């Protein structure tokens, strides 16, 4: 009999221990996941060009004023630059400058070469230079223009770079594609050849794949066309005419000949969160740049909120502990505080939107947001301060009063200082809730990611930024790196508070 109860105890405690460890494991999983996604990104990329870089395609160089983190340029992008597809760099690199495509006058031999690079050997095939292209008479003046203009790009002969190439940067070009004959990409049952991984492309070109069916395409034998003598690419006409034909060809040629190209898929990995991300201002809804202004806005928000909530909360607690006599009033006050504590943040959001934004006319801005947050965290501060004040021994108050101190002096000089660690814990808890809040802020504080200029200026906080980056599809990677920063800030607050409270407690 006792054995059975001991065995039962063992089982029960085993389960309890397991569940406790399980809780820690969940936390570890969440933290690990967010940190990992925050620090590393891994994205699928799809494109038509193969990863084959040419520093000097056809003896030409692509020069830019500043490469802004760009490693190489894909042909479709280069082509788009010269055909009005882009007006600025925002979709190309982490840069917002106006795009200035510079080309050497096609009448000059160097210019004609660049024109062939862009529009194909066989001529321009109907493609027109974009209206924004600036033509320079020669390579030197094109380079001078690039040197002087942020956001400029030019195609110049590599030979011209030399001394004149100072102050500009060159970008290698990726222009090799896999073109196929039209029958390969024909839709069969709404399907066509799938996007190919590098391994699949390798196998295809090695001849290991005999039929397009294996790649999701039509039932058609694969026919790999040989490259022209002395080159890497096959003539466009040959590809177009072959049955089930595939070959390497420059994008410009494929485009000029109207050939279909296969899509390559790959995975791009890299570091996500960097120091630059912390100190740069966000641009283009946070797609480029960093989060410095958002971090600052968050701190403004916290300071303003605490500046309002702390005095009110502590004062309310002082009233409840030191002044209020038991009775209906205190019951009402307690009920109010408890109820306020239970109201979900979305309701606070609705109220803040109606009252502060609309009726009081504060608009979407820091003030409306912070007032809403103040209401949200007030109960936490009141309750913890109340507990802390109650924990101050009565004897301390009596000691002070017996010395002839007034009640206010006693509260201000003895009770509150003695309760400070507890009050501080409450403030930190409140800050923790405020810094993680999203639902209430979206309707009250606005979402401007620029630095707040005043109380009424719309401001975006970190948690809203995480949500908006994600929800508006700006960038998932950045949502995770911002979430990492947010979590680190929350952790820092927790840790700092514990140290501080510990030290204050140590003085006792």
């Amino acid at each position, binding site marked *: 009999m006792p054995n059975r109860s001991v065995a039962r105890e063992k089982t029960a405690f085993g389960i309890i221990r397991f569940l406790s460890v399980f809780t820690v494991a969940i936390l570890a999983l969440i933290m690990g996941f967010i940190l990992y996604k925050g620090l590393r990104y891994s994205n699928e990329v799809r494109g038509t060009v193969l990863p084959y870089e040419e520093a000097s395609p056809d003896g030409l160089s692509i020069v830019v004023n500043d490469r802004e983190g760009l490693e190489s340029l894909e042909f479709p992008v280069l082509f788009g630059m010269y055909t009005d597809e882009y007006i600025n760099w925002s979709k190309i690199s982490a840069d917002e400058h106006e795009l200035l495509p510079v080309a050497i006058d096609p009448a000059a031999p160097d210019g004609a070469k660049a024109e062939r690079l862009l529009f194909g050997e066989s001529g321009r095939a109907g493609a027109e230079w974009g209206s924004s292209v600036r033509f320079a008479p020669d390579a030197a003046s094109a380079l001078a223009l690039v040197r002087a203009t942020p956001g400029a790009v030019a195609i110049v002969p590599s030979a011209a770079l030399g001394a004149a190439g100072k102050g500009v940067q060159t970008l290698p070009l990726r222009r090799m594609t896999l073109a196929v004959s039209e029958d390969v990409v024909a839709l069969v049952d709404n399907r066509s050849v799938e996007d190919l991984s590098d391994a699949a492309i390798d196998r295809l070109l090695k001849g290991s794949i005999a039929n397009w069916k294996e790649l999701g395409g039509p039932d058609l034998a694969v026919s790999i066309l040989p490259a022209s003598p002395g080159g890497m690419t096959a003539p466009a006409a040959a590809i177009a005419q072959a049955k089930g034909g595939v070959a390497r060809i420059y994008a410009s040629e494929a485009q000029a000949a109207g050939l279909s190209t296969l899509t390559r898929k790959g995975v791009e990995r890299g570091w996500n969160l960097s120091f630059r991300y912390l100190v740069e201002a966000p641009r283009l809804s946070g797609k480029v740049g960093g989060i410095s202004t958002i971090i600052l806005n968050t701190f403004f928000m916290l300071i303003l909120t605490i500046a309002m909530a702390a005095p009110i909360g502590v004062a309310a607690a002082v009233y409840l502990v030191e002044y209020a006599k038991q009775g209906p009033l205190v019951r*009402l006050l307690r009920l109010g505080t408890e109820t306020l504590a239970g109201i979900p943040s979305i309701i606070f959001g609705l109220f803040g939107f109606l009252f502060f934004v609309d009726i009081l006319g504060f608009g979407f801005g820091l003030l409306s947001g912070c007032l809403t947050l103040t209401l949200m965290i007030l109960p936490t501060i009141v309750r913890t301060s109340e507990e802390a004040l109650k924990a101050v021994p009565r004897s301390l108050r009596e000691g002070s009063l017996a010395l002839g101190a007034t009640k206010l002096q006693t509260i201000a000089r003895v009770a509150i200082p003695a309760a400070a660690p507890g009050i501080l814990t409450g403030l930190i808890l409140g800050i923790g809730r405020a810094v993680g809040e999203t639902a209430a802020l979206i309707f009250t504080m606005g979402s401007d990611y620029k630095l707040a200029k005043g109380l009424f200026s719309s401001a975006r906080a970190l948690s809203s930024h995480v949500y908006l980056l994600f929800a508006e599809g700006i960038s998932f990677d950045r949502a995770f790196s911002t979430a990492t920063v947010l979590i680190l800030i929350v952790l820092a607050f927790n840790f700092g508070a514990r140290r501080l409270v510990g030290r204050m407690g140590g003085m006792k």
Partner: protein
Amino acid sequence: MKLRKSLEKGAEGLLLFCALLSTLAVLFITIFLFHRGLPLFRKVPIAEFLFSTDWSPTAASPKYGILSFILGSFYVTALALAFAVPVGLAVGVYLAELAEKKASRAIRSAVEILAGIPSVVYGLFGIAIISAVTRTLFGGTGYSLLSASIVLAIMTLPTIINVTEVSLRAVPHELKEGSLALGATHWQTIYKVLVPTARSGIIAGVVLGMGRAIGETMAVLMVGGNAPIPPSGLTGKVRTLTMNIITDMSYAKDDHLTSLFATGIVLFVFILTLNLVVQLALKRTISSVEGGQGA
């Protein structure tokens, strides 16, 4: 002396005002919510609003029935508690009764951090991990009642753990010693004496967690699936009251907007009711603890 007296009086008045602010805020919130939400019932009968599952606010003849979302909130919360309560109880018991200092410190910090993680982050985690796990294990889309409940369970866990631990620690030592002295095992003492004595405190904690779960918005929005229909099962999509408010809030106009505020009223009334339950339960805890000390 007179100056000092009036100063003291003035200070007291100011303090009273601060103490009143919370109550005033509750009052204001109630008034504004009802003021903006109630006009809906001039056009839509309350019964239809509460008991119809047809929610098509932008249709040619708009329908405003939120029963699906009431059910959604109810299911999600119930399921979340079904996960969180056993785990929370176990961890609370562990912290209060079993853990050595080092282990309890580690677990307590973990619980504290769990409580501090912003709900958006829980949402991101839910999308990437929890929905994938439930999809793999139980099928469906992964954006479901089940996923939302699991995320909520993790989010309410800290509340339940903390309250359980505090309630267990508040049980007078003599009771425990008395039980052990009678030859009961530690485990028997825990589940026959400690947990029953701390029961009302634990219940209050659970209800508190329930309130958090019902009111949570961002995390469930990201994993719930959000279809405006009653959940078809564990792996069915779910929309809660809070999700309904935030989904359409940014662009809704006229009656549609009013209907969102009316949804807010329903949510608000639920929360208030829960709150009253907590207050009553807490009162009983306090008296039971005091009674225990007397015994």
